[in-house]
């Protein structure tokens, strides 16, 4: 029987509602009698709140209430919690300043919420906000990472601007290796700050039922159970049994919708005070100054090589911007998701990294697609190209010479991780073939004839997904477990609903998970529904981020299916009057081995719920199983990305003329969805490399605060991509899957910059910081390269 199981490019089950305008996003939800909240936000990056007079605003047409931080403080509302504790080199805890829901006494970044006006209509709330009399006394602000640690820098918090000073690896071993180095490659680089910008702005609707005492929050979240836990336990002190969090259709996340945000807590807190549902939807301008931002590192790195070009040791010193407050995951990103990846795909035997996390008067920074791993890949793949140049070696050859051999897995790196599987030679060969690497020099020469500068750049990367083994995460400072939950509910007539703790906001879970179930139970996709996003339906879950939904969430589904099949076999054995050990289950049929006696999956399901002929003494009725799966290790997707660019020296415009990605994502369940995930990641990575940059001026004003100032990649900025896979199976989960959500954004930025540097090699360029804008390139080509590059 043909089923749309593992490996089939099934068209997505969720598409019909999205294509016909019937998606149900948070802003589409309107509750009877709702009121609208408008957040008044700091226009200064750092200021003392002298006075807030709400009288005129409260008296304005349609206004229901006006709240300030003082009102929440009077209610003993907690601050927004941080989910990860990182320790300093000396073992002391990081500095963890309070993060009030609404600012009290001080504002610390442009966009910090000061007051909320709640009115009958949004227009009335905005009109009334103009009547608020707010007096702020400006304080000096600090914006840049390097500036923030200088003596005398304005202090963002009373404890100063250093959040933590952390390290990993063996400094002595690295120092010894550098003494024996034949050459040392060095680089100073910036990983540019980005804004996630999912197309759906954040939104939240809070509701309170006085009859039952139940709160409901509809919110744009990647992980509703995490929001329920953080908000219920730490902020509003509501028992989880009386708090329902629903993340309905969510229009993209890319990390920015992981975190617990002030607006969610506010609407939930305000709903019973006002006695009506409270709705808030971000305008895009608010998103720019209130969604957690990404990246923002300044690093120095040195790579020691022997005379054969083998890497001996790597040392890295990184400053990482936390922004004004600690967002939910922030401390984990530049530490456990960054420095642990600094071995990359290479056998570098000694690595030492130190990371200082820094507070500044900017929007909080947290995970954005890739989260730490793009920063690691960019640093490694840039310094490898510089090392090749220093050594006079070919860029492919130096990589191959240092790759972890394919027969060396499992491979223990010097920075804590153990890679389970990979074949970096295969993915590199795949990408080189796809882009016709051998033919590049002819293309470069042809471009030169018409006055264009062509370059090609390689990035060979590995990343860590499937976050994460709870005991390891806990030992590293995580304040939660990171398992996943699946509840497979077989209905009496044999159709199935999966309730998953992961959350789909573009990834296509409703299709991919259904394929896992179809494969295992031998039923059609039209018999399977996937439910996610509602804490009242799903037992528990940690949500979707870090490319974990298939490796962790999918494995939980497999575990629950194991239990379903085990129980169904017992029922089948009873019905077929055979020993359980003799029952075989294949293609949706339970058969007594060696006979033609069989029962269909539907018959077993019906028997489980109509147990007239059933072993009731030994088996409970029903067919509904839940599994929690805690991963044994991270998974390690990796691969090779090769970018070919052409630069117009007259304008400085870099055109990506070709891009090939060959990735090892483990077993592929739906190749169409996998390719789509890679495409999207590549667009974001190319965006980071060439266009995107979050910019503050020296007073902390956000200069890139709209789509007219922050350059989002558009259709005419990008080529079509050559995407392929060359897989090895993950060895520690039953599906052999690794994860695909972030590979595009991790592998691509260094491929692009390596290509740009290659195109400009005749200009003596060693490095260009991202984004490689036309302005920077034009300056280099026209003799001003000291301004724009080393």
């Amino acid at each position: 029987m043909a089923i749309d199981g593992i490996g089939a490019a099934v068209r997505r089950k969720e598409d019909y509602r999205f294509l016909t305008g019937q998606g149900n996003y948070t802003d589409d939800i309107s509750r009877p009698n709702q009121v609208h909240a408008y957040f008044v936000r700091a226009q200064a990056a750092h200021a003392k709140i002298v006075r807030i007079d709400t009288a005129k605003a409260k008296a304005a047409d349609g206004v229901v209430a006006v709240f300030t931080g003082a009102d929440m403080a009077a209610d003993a509302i907690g601050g927004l919690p941080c989910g990860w504790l990182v320790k300093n080199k000396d073992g002391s805890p990081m500095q963890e300043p309070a993060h009030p829901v609404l600012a009290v006494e001080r504002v610390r970044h442009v966009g910090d919420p000061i007051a909320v006006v709640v009115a009958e209509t949004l227009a009335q709330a905005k009109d009334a906000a103009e009547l608020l009399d707010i007096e702020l006394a400006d304080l000096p602000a600090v914006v840049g990472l390097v500036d923030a640690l200088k003596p005398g820098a304005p202090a963002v918090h009373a404890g100063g601007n250093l959040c933590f000073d952390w390290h990993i690896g063996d400094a002595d071993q690295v120092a010894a290796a550098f003494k024996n180095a034949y050459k040392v490659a060095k680089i100073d680089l910036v990983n540019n700050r980005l804004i996630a910008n999912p197309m759906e702005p954040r939104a939240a609707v809070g509701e309170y039922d006085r009859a039952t005492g139940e709160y409901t929050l509809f919110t744009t979240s990647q992980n509703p159970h995490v929001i329920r836990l953080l908000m219920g336990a730490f902020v509003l002190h509501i028992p989880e049994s009386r708090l329902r969090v629903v993340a309905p259709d969510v229009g993209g996340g890319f990390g920015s919708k992981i975190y617990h945000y002030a607006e969610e807590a506010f609407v939930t807190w305000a709903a019973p005070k006002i006695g009506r549902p409270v709705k808030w939807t971000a305008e895009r301008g608010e998103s720019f100054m209130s969604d957690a931002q990404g990246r923002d590192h300044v690093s120095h790195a040195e790579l020691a090589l022997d005379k054969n070009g083998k890497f001996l040791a790597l040392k890295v010193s990184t400053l990482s911007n936390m922004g004004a407050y600690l967002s939910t995951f922030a401390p984990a990103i530049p530490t456990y998701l960054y420095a642990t990846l600094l071995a990359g795909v290479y056998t570098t035997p000694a690595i030492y990294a130190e990371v200082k996390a820094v507070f500044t008067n900017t929007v909080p920074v947290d995970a954005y697609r890739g989260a730490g791993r793009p920063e690691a890949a960019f640093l490694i793949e840039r310094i490898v190209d510089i090392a090749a140049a220093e050594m006079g070696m070919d860029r492919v050859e130096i990589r191959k010479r240092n790759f972890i051999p394919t027969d060396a897995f499992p491979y223990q790196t010097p920075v804590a991780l153990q890679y389970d599987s990979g074949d970096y030679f295969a993915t590199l060969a795949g990408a080189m073939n796809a882009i016709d690497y051998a033919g590049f020099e002819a293309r470069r020469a042809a471009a030169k004839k018409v006055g264009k500068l062509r370059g090609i750049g390689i990035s060979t990367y590995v990343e860590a997904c499937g976050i994460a083994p709870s005991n390891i995460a806990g030992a590293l400072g995580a304040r939660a477990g990171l398992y996943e939950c699946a509840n497979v509910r077989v209905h009496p007539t044999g159709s199935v609903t999966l309730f998953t703790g992961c959350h789909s906001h573009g990834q296509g879970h409703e299709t991919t998970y259904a394929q896992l179930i179809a494969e295992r139970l031998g039923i059609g996709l039209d018999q399977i529904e996937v439910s996610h996003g509602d804490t009242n339906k799903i037992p528990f879950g940690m949500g979707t981020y870090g490319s974990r939904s298939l490796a962790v969430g999918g494995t939980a589904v497999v575990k629950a299916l194991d239990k379903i099949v085990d129980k169904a076999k017992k029922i089948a054995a009873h019905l077929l009057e055979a020993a359980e050990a003799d029952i075989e289950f294949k293609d949706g049929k339970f058969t007594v081995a060696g006979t033609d006696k069989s029962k269909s999956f539907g018959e077993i399901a019906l028997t489980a719920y109509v147990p007239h002929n059933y072993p009731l003494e030994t088996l409970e009725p029903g067919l509904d199983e839940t599994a929690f799966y805690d991963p044994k290790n991270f998974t390690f997707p990796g691969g090779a990305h090769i970018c070919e660019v052409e630069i117009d020296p007259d304008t400085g415009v870099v055109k990506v003329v070709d891009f090939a990605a060959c990735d090892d994502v483990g077993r592929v369940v739906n190749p169409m969805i996998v390719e789509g995930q890679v495409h999207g990641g590549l667009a974001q990575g190319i965006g980071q490399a060439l266009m995107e940059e979050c910019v503050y001026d020296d007073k902390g004003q956000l200069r890139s605060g709209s789509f007219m100032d922050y350059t989002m990649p558009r259709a005419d900025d990008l080529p079509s991509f050559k995407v392929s896979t060359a897989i090895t199976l993950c060895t520690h989960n039953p599906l052999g899957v690794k994860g695909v959500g972030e590979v595009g954004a991790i592998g691509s930025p260094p491929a692009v910059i390596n290509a740009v540097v290659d195109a400009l090699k005749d200009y003596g360029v060693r490095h260009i910081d991202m984004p490689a804008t036309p302005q920077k390139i034009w300056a280099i080509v026209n003799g001003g390269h000291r301004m724009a590059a080393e």
Partner: protein
Amino acid sequence: MAKISLTVNGKKVSAEIEGRTLLVQVLREKLGMTGTHVGCDTSQCGACVVHVDGKSVKSCTMLAAQADGTAVTTIEGLANGNELHPMQAAFKEHHGLQCGFCTPGMVMSAIELAKRNSNPSEHDVREWLEGNICRCTGYHNIVKAVQAGAQAMAAAK
């Protein structure tokens, strides 16, 4: 407050509006048609594209008063019952959507391109969609979908 009357997806409707009310607000808030989305506040992202008298328009940038007396088509008005419009079907077939938020605007914009050019090149599609931002797909499959959708629309004529 003023009253406007217009035709939306073939149905005559009217609404009481303020002078500052935008077309998209009438669609979403007054008529409850939430298929048309708002993704920005600077007329850049195109999530709100609808057709006004047959032309694609960013409904966040048109006052509702300007739409008085017009015929508006939204994403909800394309399918014939359960049968998708050829452009919708092409987006599904070619995986031209992920989170679905930019999708209504993309589809509405693509349909106008297809009406002007029944066989657009990749370059034509990428140029045309310059006013529609997608953060999920990298545009690769959107381009394929629009090309296929345009051909299917031409074939269905």
